[in-house]
Each structure stands twice: as C-alpha cells, then as structure tokens.
C-alpha cells in the first residue's frame, strides 16, 4: 500500500500515523519474542529480526528506522551469544575447561541480554504511543545507515 507523505527530517518531532506506530512497535516486540524463543540458539532471534526488517524494507522512514535500530541491537547480542554458545559446547565436550573467565562472560551476556529485552519492551511501548526512542550507540548507528527520504 502506497502512502503519500511529506519528507521526514526530524523523527523526534514527527507524528507517526497509527499504522506506522504499530509496525515500528512490532519491530521491537518481534525482537523480544525472538530473544525469548531463541536464547539457546543465538541465530533464531537474529533471523526473526532480519525477516521482520526485510518485510518492512519498503515501509516509511519512521518504521524502517525503528526496525533497523531493533535489528542492530539484535546483531550485537547475536555475536555475544554466539561466542557463549561455542564456548559452552567446547566445555561440554571437554575441549575447554570451566573457568571463572567463562562464567564471568556468561553472566555478562546475561546482563546484556536482560538489558536488551527491557530496552526493547520500553521502546515498543514508547513507539506505540508515537514517541521517538533513540538508543545510545545503536541510535547513532541507525542514523548513519538510514537516511530520511520521501517515504
């Protein structure tokens, strides 16, 4: 479905339509659900976010921006979880010892995963209300990747 829309240059002052709010909010919710479903296998949550991002690649700037921010946070968590996954398999098969360094890493990524879930839920709620939510680091990265356009 095509929409006629004026160029969006400032997301903070932009008032998104109802369908945009819903789609952008779903981008974050998709991440939360996928993280919960895919925690043991780090690839699942990333795949879910990539899929949602691809489905919305032709959406408006507002929707695309938030889907990208959700995806980028997922990519970061994916790399952290993948290291933990590989390390755990090595320990389970006796190829690596169980050390404080490993357990320290495990608890660190638990902190980051939980933080990411909280951030996602908070962003999903804010975006649903029409408020723009720009995260530290991921927000700046998204601004670099997604430029405002006519859509």
């Amino acid at each position, binding site marked *: 479905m095509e929409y006629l829309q004026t160029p969006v240059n400032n997301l903070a002052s932009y008032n998104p339509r109802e369908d945009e709010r819903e789609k952008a909010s779903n981008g974050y919710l998709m991440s939360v659900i996928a993280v919960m479903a895919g925690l043991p296998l780090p690839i699942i949550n990333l795949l879910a976010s990539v899929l949602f991002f691809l489905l919305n690649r032709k959406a408006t700037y507002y929707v695309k921006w938030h889907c990208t921010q959700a995806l980028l946070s997922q990519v970061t968590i994916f790399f952290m979880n993948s290291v933990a996954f*590989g390390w755990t398999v090595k320990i389970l098969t*006796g*190829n*690596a010892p169980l050390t404080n360094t490993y*357990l320290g*890493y495990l608890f660190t990524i638990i902190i980051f995963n939980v933080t990411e879930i909280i951030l996602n839920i908070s962003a999903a709620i804010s975006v649903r209300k029409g408020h723009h939510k720009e995260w530290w680091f991921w927000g700046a990265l998204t601004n670099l990747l997604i430029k405002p356009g006519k859509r």
Partner: protein
Amino acid sequence: MKKLAIQFIVFAGSFFLIWMGLAQLPWTKWLHAQNFSAKRQKAMSDVFIKAYGLKNRSISDESVKKIVDTIKRRICISNKIDTATIHIYIYQNPEINAYSLPGGNIMVNTALIAQCSNPEMLAGVIAHEIGHIESGHIKKRMVKEIALSVAMLFGGDNLGIIKTVLKELSSGKFDRTQETEADTKAVQYLMTAGINPLPMADFFDKLQHSHGDTPEILEWLSTHPNSKERAILIRKLSSRRPYPALLSDSSWHYLRKATTNPGF
C-alpha cells in the same frame, strides 16, 4: 561519525570491564564446578556405551578381554599412555568396523577381527584408534556434531541427539588430515611397542584388493578413504627390522574363534 566511534569504544569497553570484573569472582568454587568437565565427559561416555549396547551384543568372554587388553597394554605402556584412559569393547556385529567414542572408548566389531590375518593387523587398527583419541579428533568431531544436534535437543528429542551423534561418530568420518595423523601415530606407537607395523598396511591392501566387492567392505572403505595411499604411507614410515610375535598362536586362535563363533 566521531560520536559513533566514541560510543562504540565506550560500549565495547564497558562490556569488557564488566566481563573482567565478573571473571575475578570465584564462580567455579561457589558452584563446586572444578571437576565439571571430567564428570561431564564420563557421563557422556557412559551414555554412548549404553546406547551402543542397546543395538549390539558385547563379547563378555573374560579370556577374549584379557587378550585384547594385552595388546592395549603393550601399545599404551610403551608409549606412556595411561592404560586406564583407554577402554576397548568387542561387539558382535557383521559390519567391518572399529571406531572411537568419547571417553577413550574403542569399539571393535567381530567382523573386523575376522578380517585380520594376524594379531599385528588388529594391533594396527587399535593403535590407529588410539591415535585418533590421543590427537583429540573425537573431541573435535563431538563439538561439530553436538553443535549441529542442539536443535534436536531443544526439540525434546534427547534419544534422537544421542543416536545422531553416535551414528556420525561410528561412521568414522574423520577428514583426510586426521586419518593421516592417526596412521602416523599408529605406526610410531607400534614401532615403539615393538610390534610390526607392516601388517597394518597389509590390512588396508587386503580389504581393498581381496574383498572390495562385498557391501561390508565397501562400507568400511567409503568411510576410510584413500586406503591405497594410506598403505603406502604406513610402509614408508615403518622400519623394517625383526619384531617379536605379539601374541602366542594359541591366544590368537582363541580370540578369532571366540569372536567369530560366540558361545563356541
């Protein structure tokens, strides 16, 4: 861009700081996890033996066990390998195969013993499997297989994962480099133990040339590629000198008879 780079450095820095900070805490002591790896491996090893035992009948003849143990001890002691870490089991199975499982377990099928013309051939096969264990090939394959099977584990199919990993391990699909490494180690082990390594090469030739058309042999050859090249390598590495007999004729004949005609 500069702002982004600074934010990235702060983000990565805080991650490493939290990690290094948490790593200072004595988690392993708190969780009583010092012996986790050893316990886990033992448990895993028991599961595999149990699973294999469900499909195959093991040879329980004490004299057979003693003869095979003699070969194992000869190889291990001479090469400073802890004999307690290697366990050999003989199973009644028509497939010409021998392979290693996690936990230093070597499974030898009776059909393979039937193919051996002398005890040195069997010693060659055992030395080859010990070579895989000592080179850590089993652990490397386990990492791969388990990683691939984790999806099944989370699907609730615990028996399925064991079966899949067992099937893969028993298929003997080591890569070419690993096979060469195990062969090289086997020749070294045999020579150090004063066992003639040349029959090991003869074993490859025998399987390839004499019976290459039977399905059982084809199965073995398909999982152990380049048998001809491997026989050449073994001959190249072997020193030609007189070797004492590994077993007495009576012991060897007893082993062959007991494994080919169980309950004789």
